[in-house]
């Protein structure tokens, strides 16, 4: 909504530009972007300008959810489509792309520049098999959001790390909710992975393995059972809210603005959302003032939490006709200054740690330092070429939350992952 006319113009002109440049002028670099509030399109314009006629960067929109984005890209890349040059990819799907040979190798000099001052989790998420295969762009992480009034009434000291057990107990005592993403979708895997890694475990033993037959799940362990126990406790305490089994990030953000709000784990967009609602006059300023934020809850008391890691990295298609220009464009896109602007305009936190130090960022996002710290602790989801199968199997066996039990869910998930990867089961 910020610059509707410019966007419309771009949408109309982009295809024309693509046609025209095939004949003459600088080559077009097609960038497949994730939906945002127009920030990517703005960056594309800037980079086109800055390239000084070396290339024209155009954007094409991908679907809303990460698995949908993967499907679209994989379908095109499997066909050897040359019309994609640069693509925004959700980190968990990067190994699959790399393993299938869809990604052009990152030149060493590019790799050196784009990993400077970048959070370790973000570099890890951009790599496969110890090698950087994509360019880290923006990074995302979840925080523990809480209502200051609720925490105070429950006597929780939020300046210290808290555990899931504590917040479930506090919410039950105060009659409020703990909003978690319990819907059967990628966001459930995000939650489970955070619970498991925070308990010191991993979903897979050998995520790097390229042979599907040899992948070994690692869920039926103390860490996996701790994670299942937390979900079972939360569900049993009845604090998940009425829509627990369908709750996604949006439903939870909405619930957290309501009367029953207590705690929530969610991405930082909820802050922007609440601020807009206050501006629109549908939310009291008092509610916004009651918003508190803290580091992701611990699965095991005393063991530092590993918050979820999300975001987007830039991959250059192996079938691109201009890989060198595409890498040039990628470097332009991830420039810390642009990332800071992107953060301010679209609310997507930068992967580059220096971008957090921009004064405007500090001013607009009072929790910026916490996000930065959370990013440094964040654990990626299993970096396996078979991520889709692993994640979907997990969602099948750990949903709905009320059915999760430490005795059965971890072992059922292990069995299904193995069966699916060995081609013995449907998904």
């Amino acid at each position, binding site marked *: 909504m910020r610059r509707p006319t410019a966007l419309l113009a771009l949408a109309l002109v982009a295809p024309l530009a693509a046609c025209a440049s095939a004949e003459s002028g600088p080559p077009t670099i097609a960038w497949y972007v994730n939906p945002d509030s127009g920030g990517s399109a703005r960056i594309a314009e800037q980079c086109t300008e800055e390239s000084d006629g070396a290339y024209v960067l155009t954007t094409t929109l991908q679907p809303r959810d990460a698995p949908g984005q993967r499907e679209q890209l994989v379908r095109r890349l499997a066909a050897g489509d040359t019309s994609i040059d640069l693509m925004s990819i959700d980190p968990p799907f990067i190994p*699959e792309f790399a393993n299938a040979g869809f990604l052009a190798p990152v030149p060493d000099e590019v790799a050196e520049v784009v990993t400077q001052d970048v959070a370790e989790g973000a570099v890890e998420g951009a790599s496969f098999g110890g090698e950087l295969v994509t360019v880290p762009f923006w990074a995302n992480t979840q925080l523990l959001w809480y209502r200051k009034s609720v925490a105070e009434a429950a006597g929780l000291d939020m300046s210290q790390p808290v555990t899931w057990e504590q917040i479930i107990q506090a919410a039950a005592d105060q009659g409020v909710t703990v909003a978690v993403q319990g819907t059967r979708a990628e966001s459930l895997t995000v939650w489970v992975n955070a619970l498991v890694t925070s308990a010191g475990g991993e979903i897979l033993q050998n995520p790097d393995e390229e042979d599907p037959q040899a992948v070994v799940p690692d869920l039926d362990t103390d860490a996996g059972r701790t994670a299942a126990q937390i979900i079972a406790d939360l569900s049993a305490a009845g604090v998940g809210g009425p829509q*627990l*089994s369908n709750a996604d990030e949006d439903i939870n953000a909405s*619930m957290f603005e309501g009367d029953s709000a207590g705690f929530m784990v969610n991405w930082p967009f909820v802050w922007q959302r609440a601020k807009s609602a206050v501006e629109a006059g549908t939310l009291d300023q008092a509610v916004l003032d009651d918003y508190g934020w803290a580091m992701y809850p611990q699965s095991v008391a005393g063991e530092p939490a590993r918050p979820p890691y999300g975001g987007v990295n830039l991959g250059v298609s192996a079938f691109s006709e201009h890989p060198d220009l595409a890498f040039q464009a990628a470097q332009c896109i991830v420039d810390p200054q642009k990332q800071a602007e992107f953060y301010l305009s679209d609310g997507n936190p930068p992967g580059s740690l220096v971008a957090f130090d921009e004064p405007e960022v500090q001013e607009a996002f009072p929790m910026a330092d916490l996000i930065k710290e959370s990013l440094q602790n964040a654990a990626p989801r299993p970096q396996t070429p078979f991520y889709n199968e692993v994640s979907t199997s997990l969602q099948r066996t750990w*949903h709905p939350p009320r059915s999760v039990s430490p005795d059965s869910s971890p072992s059922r998930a292990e069995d299904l992952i193995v069966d699916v990867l060995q081609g013995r089961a*449907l998904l």
Partner: protein
Amino acid sequence: MSAATTGIPAATTAGAAAPTDRPRRPRRSDRGRQEARLGLLLCAPAVLVLVAVVGYPILQAVWDSLYSYKLTNPDARRFVGLENYALILSDPIWWQALWVTVLITVVTVVVELVLGFALALVMNNALGSLRPALRTAILIPYAIITVVSAFAFRFMFDITSGFVNTWLPFVPDDLDWFASFGTAVTVISISEIWKTTPFISLLLLSGLAQVPGELQEAAKVDGATWWQRMRRVTIPNMKAAIMVALLFRTLDAFRIFDNIFIMTNGAAGTESVSFLAYRQTIQRLEIGIGSAVSVLLTVCVALIALLFVKGFKVNLAASTRAGR
């Protein structure tokens, strides 16, 4: 496919032959041959397109279903014979999907038939001024995109954006309709029923118009009650229309996909067979397994068509329509 088509030609001959009763030009034998050639020539483009668009892909699907073939790993493609079928038929997920599909099909078709009949009766008896308006209104659900209908009902029943829970007195305000199987299937079925009942009611309405008025009058004179007249006169005379409507709707309902995709995306155990095929092929990129699911779905549809045509003796000649 083959079963569906083999059942039909014999049945259609009567309908197709109808025009021959009309007065036509005197026929000479070479003229007849010429006519036959022209007829074939005129039909050829349409037939070729149908065979190419459907026949070829189906053969391809049968072929692909014999392979283990993942799109992101084409090098590992290998012949596995009927292994994919064995895998599917031994997996509880397939049987769950089949059960969901059969359940939704039976529930929606039965409700649609009853509701459609009621709508047809009202339209048949409505006063002159109201009738065209009713006919227009009833076409709107038919013409609306299924996806739009699915979204409308999803938002309606949603806890946060919807109003159904506040309106319905016997439902707790925080009931999440999409959380459990029973309620989720209910909402999916409601959307499906809303969208397709008008089609059934229009078919039944034209069937109602065919019931001879004198029979009705005679029964009335004999002192038959409304219900008796309905059972003895109206319904038997509409049998053809009812069976045709049933056949088309059953086959259509069995392919349910859009509503499930939009409303639950398969959660809460609501995956249909079509959805299962979509998930294997498009989401998982397992072309081999996905093709096998598609072939099995096709076999199911063909069996249903066969059941109707042979079992219930549906005279398709009585129907020159092929809508959905």
